[in-house]
């Protein structure tokens, strides 16, 4: 049973790990068998499956972290994530479906801070040996014109 306190703790840990750049910890917030999508709102609403960032297993998220830390080339930047309040949508057995707004901003050297994503997250969490984990996270962003690149996960 995932209660509100457990959810709050989960998301506090999730966003702190990402904001602090501890990306190697990120895949463990997900179940081994999971779905992660960061998708433009127009695709989501039209029923188009194309996602800007996509993973269908914890392994793919591990590969995403490997890609962004070892293979991608980009100007250095900080991302900071501003989640809104968590709203319970439904509960089914051991899983809970929640949604929350999310603003992701980036700061590059000598530049003004700018918005990377203005989004709503549709998440499904399950209890995995007493520990909440994401079985599904769909980040639907309104801000479809991305300022150049989208590097770190939301």
């Amino acid at each position, binding site marked *: 049973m995932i209660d509100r306190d457990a959810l709050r703790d989960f998301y506090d840990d999730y966003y702190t790990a990402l904001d602090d750049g501890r990306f190697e910890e990120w895949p463990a917030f997900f179940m081994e068998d999971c779905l992660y999508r960061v998708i433009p709102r127009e695709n989501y609403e039209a029923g188009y499956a*194309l996602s800007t960032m996509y993973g269908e297993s914890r392994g793919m998220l591990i*590969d995403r972290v490997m890609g962004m830390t070892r293979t991608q080339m980009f100007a250095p930047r900080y991302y900071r994530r501003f989640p809104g309040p968590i709203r319970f949508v439904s509960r089914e057995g051991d899983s809970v479906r929640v949604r929350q707004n999310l603003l992701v901003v980036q700061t590059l050297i000598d530049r003004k801070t700018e918005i990377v994503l203005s989004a709503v997250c549709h998440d499904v969490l399950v209890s995995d040996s007493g520990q909440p984990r994401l079985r599904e996270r769909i980040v639907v962003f309104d801000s479809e014109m991305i300022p150049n*690149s*989208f590097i770190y996960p939301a």
Partner: protein
Amino acid sequence: MNSINRTWPADTMGRVPYWVYSDPDIYAAEMERVWYGPHWLYCGLEAEIPNVGDFKTTTIGERPVIMTRGGPDEINVVENRCAHRGVKFCQVRKGNAKELLCPYHQWNYSLRGDLQGAAFRRGVRGQGGMPADFDPRDHGLRKLRVAAVNGVVWATFSNDTPGFREYLGERFWRHYTRVYDGRKLEILGYNRQHIKGNWKLMQENIKDPYHASLLHVFFVTFGLFRADQKSATEVDQTGRHGILISRRGQQEVNDVTSTMRTFRGDIKLADPRILDAVKEYPDEDAIQIMTVFPSVVLQSNLNSMSTRHIVPTGPDGFDFHWTHWGYAGDTPEMRQRRLRQSNLFGPAGLVSADDGEAIEMCQQGFAHSTDQAALVVMGGRETESVEHMVTEVAIRGMYRYWRETMGL
């Protein structure tokens, strides 16, 4: 026509002066001579407007347009600018309509752009109204010439543009019809990004296999695009279009990869399905990526298909619209494969994010050094197609054509 007060460097083929990327007069002249000149510009895919009455708005050059389906076999492209007061009257991305209506004064047009009615044309209770010489036939939306070719919609502002096949040339027509072979396409979705660099840098990026075989660690490491593989860099007869072709290799240490500081022999994928490509064309090529000058990149990389539409927004920036697609007859497995591989491309692409970043870094580096010039002599100073990727031949080809077009 703007006059250009610039002189090309003495090393005609080996140098590209930095003012081509930042001079506002050059940019203004490009709009007239390149974008609104005798060139076919990418508008969209027929699959985006499958039903009669469907429309899609887009921008070609800097001008907003609407692509409409007026009939089962009729596609129109008209300017999204009311003939009355110039309103960009259609503000949604897509829709279905019987007519095009400007909300400001309720002028309405057919899907072909003909003016059908102007509110109060005959006045109200005998007052006002349009003058007697007002003829609706003189006040339609501006109509562009359209070519719908195997699922892709092209438009041109110029009457001098040759037929689309001739525009590509026979060699590039063959490359084009390898992928756009007449089968119906299915839209998988969009990605959009704004890149703070001159639009030509995007063309150059896809004409530059030299960078692709070094910068893109993901490609290099997994043998998708690397200098030791069988490959080709082709340029059309005019120089304006280019294509990079590569066959897949292995993740192996050899005489070439051992010299590349971006080759990572130790990387293993936790879930290798992202590279689970299957052969789907008669040839053995893993990557064919083609630039159709000036407006689009046509991607056929592994099984990931996309059009990448360039929309210039000034000398120092462009919007980049990606439309990912599959064939309408794809199996669910094939569709899933294309979606998975799209992780490599787009603004978050494990490969393509590198390009947007590199382009912005180029613009930052040279924008304020217009007396200097880039060096593009890798592989010599020629502009003929070659059977390898250690070359800047396609960039030289584009500037040979660009200079002719710009009168420089």
